[in-house]
């Protein structure tokens, strides 16, 4: 039982173009892929389908072999010990959640007159997602509205959510995570929103990837700050 500091790197990678299914059945794969395509739809920019979010989710749900990429992206970490035990237990829960979730999507689809979720048209698929999410379809953020918010307990992990919220979160992760995890193919997610992003994880380790050009390059602290009269740079 090795410490996290000694977890070995397994020399594997994920091919985003693969149609091989490590967890999903054929039907589950196409259902989740179709739902993902409504969560981040394709328009004049690529969406979840083109980013191969389905591959990202399938690999994540397949066990614990693809939870953590090696720091330099050269493979994946082989988790061990207690961390591996609880990660495996959570994965089992997710597997069950997705299996039941797909069945529920199909059951709702049938109430909407479709034979299953995949064969429903996009408007019906949206109506099914509205029903399973228990909330109206999200409206656009507008600049002319006002709303106040309050801090509340929430974490950044994917646990403790409903099937739909989990799916929406995993789709987001698959669209925007480093491509090493199988989604965000060709860094399309990053291109859609204007995030430069590194060409590889390795490039983030030695100064190769830099965001310096995205900072203000010409500046004078004496002009930026109200009362400062020291030197103009550091």
């Amino acid at each position, binding site marked *: 039982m090795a410490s996290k500091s000694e977890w070995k790197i397994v020399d594997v990678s994920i091919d985003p173009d693969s149609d091989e299914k490590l967890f999903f059945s054929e039907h589950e794969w196409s259902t989740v892929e179709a739902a993902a395509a409504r969560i981040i739809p394709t328009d004049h920019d690529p969406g979840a389908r083109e980013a191969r979010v389905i591959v990202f989710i399938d690999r994540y749900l397949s066990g614990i072999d693809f939870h953590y990429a090696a720091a330099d992206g050269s493979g994946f970490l082989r988790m061990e010990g207690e961390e591996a035990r609880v990660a495996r237990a959570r994965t089992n829960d997710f597997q069950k959640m997705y299996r039941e979730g797909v069945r529920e999507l199909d059951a709702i689809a049938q109430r909407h007159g479709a034979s299953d979720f995949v064969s429903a048209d996009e408007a019906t698929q949206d109506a099914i997602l509205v029903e399973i999410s228990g909330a109206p379809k999200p409206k656009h953020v507008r600049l002319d509205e006002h709303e106040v918010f309050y801090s509340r307990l929430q974490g950044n992990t994917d646990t403790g959510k409903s099937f739909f919220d989990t799916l929406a979160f995993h789709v987001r992760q698959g669209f925007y995570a480093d491509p090493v995890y199988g989604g965000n193919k060709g860094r399309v997610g990053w291109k859609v929103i204007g995030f430069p992003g590194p060409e590889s994880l390795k490039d983030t380790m030695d100064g190769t990837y830099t965001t310096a050009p995205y900072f*203000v390059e010409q500046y004078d602290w004496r002009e930026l700050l*109200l009362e400062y009269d020291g030197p103009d740079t550091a």
Partner: protein
Amino acid sequence: MVEKNDPVDVVIVGLGAGGGPAAKVLAEAGYSVVGFDKGPWLRPSEHYSGDELKFQNRSYLWPDVDLMPRTVRSDESSEGRIFNFSPVPSAVGGGTTHMAGWTPRPRPSDFIMRSLHGDIEGASLADWPYRYEHLEPYLTKVEWSYGISGLNGAEIGAGFRSKPYPSGPLPPTKFGAKFYEGCRKLGINAMPLPMSHLTERNELGRKAVNRTSFWNQYGDPTETRSTVATTYIPDALATGNFEVRADTFVREVKVDKNGRATGVVYIAPDGSEHLQEATVVILALGAIESSRLMLLSKSPRFPEGLANDSGLVGKNATFHEYLFAVGLFDREVTDPLNGFTGNYQSGGSMHFYETDHDRGHIGGGIIATTQIGQPINPILPGKPVWGEAAKDADRDYFLHSMKIGMILQDLPQETNRVDLDPTVKDRWGMPVARITNKPHANDTAMSKWQIDKNVEILEAAGAVRTMPVYLGEEFTGNACHQHGTVRMGNDPQKSVLNEWAQAHSVDNLFVLDGSGFATAMGVNPTLTIMAHSWRAADYIANTYLKGRSERLVLEPVSAGN
């Protein structure tokens, strides 16, 4: 059952911001020191990179809530819920391995809140048993050995400093420049906040090549970030007097029949139990876990927990809260703000730090504009989660929004506390910390006033829409700051530790993290924790372990101070 090791001079439990400086000072003074951390000893150049999913969403450094849970509730009568409240990485280096690293100095007023404000109803204000001037030499030592960057002379109203910063700040980001513009328009003094990382051409000769902006919550594979694991731990190891025992859980501090600490019982990685005897026991697990370990360490002399004659261990907990306002800009007329850039913070202010009674609350805190985040987890309150609206929100605002946050200085209250959860256990089978907390009226008022001010700055900077996020009905622990649970003071009835963070009733027990802080300060605590630890370790090395003792006598605070 329990295997015994050779005794050492000092054991330190917890190798983060509190334990690191103590390890360095005591090992360099020639004492044999063993340091424990329940987490792994990771190697930055091998284990860290800019992987958002791994560091922000899959808890590679954050504690796994299924292994090390905490529970939280708002009062005595409600049920605790399992939640990762005020999490800090379990790793050698602790929170310093991944934190954004705002490292402003405290102000002289932080040490004398009770003298300045008297008794506030519902709060338990107290002065610290030492003052800014006692800490100043150690703040300087930390800034120059650990590595802090800042702009000399930019903090208007700062306390005395004996030396400038060893490194200049990063250039402003685009959103940082907007923040400065808004502040200037409103007559607010702003500055690049002091940060625990270096920039090029620093005085310490360390390379500072990491400009990836994968910063807050990420480990840094380079030596740009200052961390305990890459500074004080190697310094201590270089003496040959220091040993690290990682992945090792200390479950009890042992005492003899007179109540003096004899050492600690720990669970090794293979599950076996050991006793490590020592002349001095230092706890530095963070204010939640240090108080938990004291409450777990029951003995005939201390039936209510170690050194807990006053019954105050765990009480008067303060956590800060990170609150903010987001501003949305019109992408048709505004150049990109690039909210993904920077080492989290890119411009702050202590303009609202000191009390102004016209605001309707006492105290104040630091504010700063910070990264919106990376693609998976950008901050946009009420963000649509699916469909065209979700995709458009990312396209429209990922590059065209900014955020101004605040560190809420919460007032200490005896009812806000840490105790042992009656049912929930951790991976080692021990009862976990349960946090009980409810904001004081002053906390709520400060949140409202300051967030509204942040909204004004955003508007002055050109935001078309603003989204304030105020303090809710309970703390969320999202600042990951912890203080007050093992309070320092002069009166053993009203405090647990003295001015050296030494237990009143256990002379060879020291608690060297934020646990001793009588009030929360309005700044991020890490720099103060490190200086506080160094100061106490200096006392342990040069006075206590030489068989002497000293007391610090404070003059009363003069009127108008």
